[in-house]
């Protein structure tokens, strides 16, 4: 039997840089109220959301990703040619093939980086980060770009009073690279396909194409079931991620949960009994729920405003349609 030379990667991986892009159009609750019977007070009290960003025709999934990635690459202090792989998590890129990651890799000027899309809903960032860490430690890429990007406004039913106000658009990206010290903890992740009806696209595209349904597909969810799962089941997963990383909540600096809804965030903080010293991301107030983009966008904002600093220890957890989830402890770039 011939001997295959083993691949050689870095001892560990870390997030080296982060970047975000928020579309220029800011949409206040008043605009949402044009199509649903609700109130600003109701929306704020149920979700914490005051405004969200909606993308224009020019702010495509690829364009927003290139903007966010450019910032992340600059923040990491590397050049695009050094990137070995581009992983894009999205559920709102409406061209099935080719993967949008290839266009993004090309536009950024990477040197033929491996590029592919993944579908893991609101847990997409954590899934991408886990893949990136594996690639770096295994040796198939030195630097990996992980992008979470959504145009959920395209998948929003503006007449559904339970979800019309929830979603926003944007892109968040991180550059993951080699490290001499552990800076991305073990990922606690999984799926619960028995709960696939809890958050879903209303109908398949094919039903729309054949005219079986007149309304464009949208994302719908069972609010109470999602809330219970997100708060109580995900708090357990978050706790497991802390334990897997050997970090106590007292040692934690920052908590960046998926920005689904501020009520979920509040209840998670309470259930996890996080000390008041932990900075909690609440980007949802002005960004809405941007699914896979929400964690890197929130991370970028916390660092930009000085609420968090480079080197801080952060717990990140994504959870959503699938149902799927991923939690890990990271050192902030």
């Amino acid at each position, binding site marked *: 039997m011939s001997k295959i030379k083993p691949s050689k990667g870095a001892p560990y991986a870390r997030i080296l840089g982060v970047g975000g892009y928020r579309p220029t159009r800011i949409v206040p609750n008043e605009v949402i109220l044009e199509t649903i019977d609700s109130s600003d007070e109701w929306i704020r009290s*149920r979700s914490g959301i005051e405004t969200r960003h909606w993308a224009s025709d020019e702010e495509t999934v690829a364009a927003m990703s290139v903007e966010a990635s450019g910032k992340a690459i600059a923040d990491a202090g590397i050049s695009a040619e050094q990137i070995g792989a581009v992983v894009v998590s999205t559920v709102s890129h409406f061209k099935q093939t080719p993967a949008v990651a290839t266009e993004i890799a090309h536009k950024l000027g990477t040197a033929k980086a491996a590029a592919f899309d993944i579908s893991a809903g609101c847990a997409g960032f954590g899934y991408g980060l886990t893949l990136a860490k594996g690639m770096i430690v295994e040796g198939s890429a030195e630097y990996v770009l992980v992008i979470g990007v959504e145009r959920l406004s395209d998948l929003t039913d503006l007449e559904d009073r339970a979800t019309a106000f929830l979603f926003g658009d944007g892109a968040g990206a991180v550059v993951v690279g080699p490290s001499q010290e552990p800076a991305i903890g073990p990922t606690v992740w999984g799926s619960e396909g028995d709960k696939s009806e809890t958050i879903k696209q209303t109908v398949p595209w094919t039903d729309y194409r054949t005219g079986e349904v007149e309304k464009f597909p949208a994302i719908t969810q069972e*609010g*109470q079931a999602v809330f219970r799962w997100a708060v109580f089941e995900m708090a357990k997963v978050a706790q497991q991620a802390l334990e897997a990383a050997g970090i106590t909540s007292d040692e934690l600096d920052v908590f960046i949960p998926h920005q689904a809804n501020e*009520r979920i965030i509040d209840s998670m903080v309470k259930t996890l009994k996080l000390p008041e010293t932990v900075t909690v991301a609440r980007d949802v107030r002005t960004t809405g729920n941007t699914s896979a983009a929400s964690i890197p966008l929130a991370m970028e904002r916390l660092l930009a405003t000085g609420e968090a600093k480079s080197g801080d220890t952060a717990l990140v957890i994504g959870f959503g349609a699938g149902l799927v989830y991923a939690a890990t402890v990271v050192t902030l770039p």
Partner: protein
Amino acid sequence: MAATQEEIVAGLAEIVNEIAGIPVEDVQLDKSFTDDLDVDSLSMVEVVVAAEERFDVKIPDEDVKNLKTVGDATEYILKHQA
């Protein structure tokens, strides 16, 4: 030992007080969680989970919508507690 109706109402009152800040004496059998006690649909989930722990009972999502009043919840717990 299974809780009595009185104990369940008292327990629910404490839970509603903690979650929604409603005075315990306002939590009566005929009170609607949403209309009288200002417990919205998301807070109701928190009440349900706290009640599950306290009274050792399982209240699945599909049953939560039927628990409109404190009396509904009390009756449900009385019937289903372990």
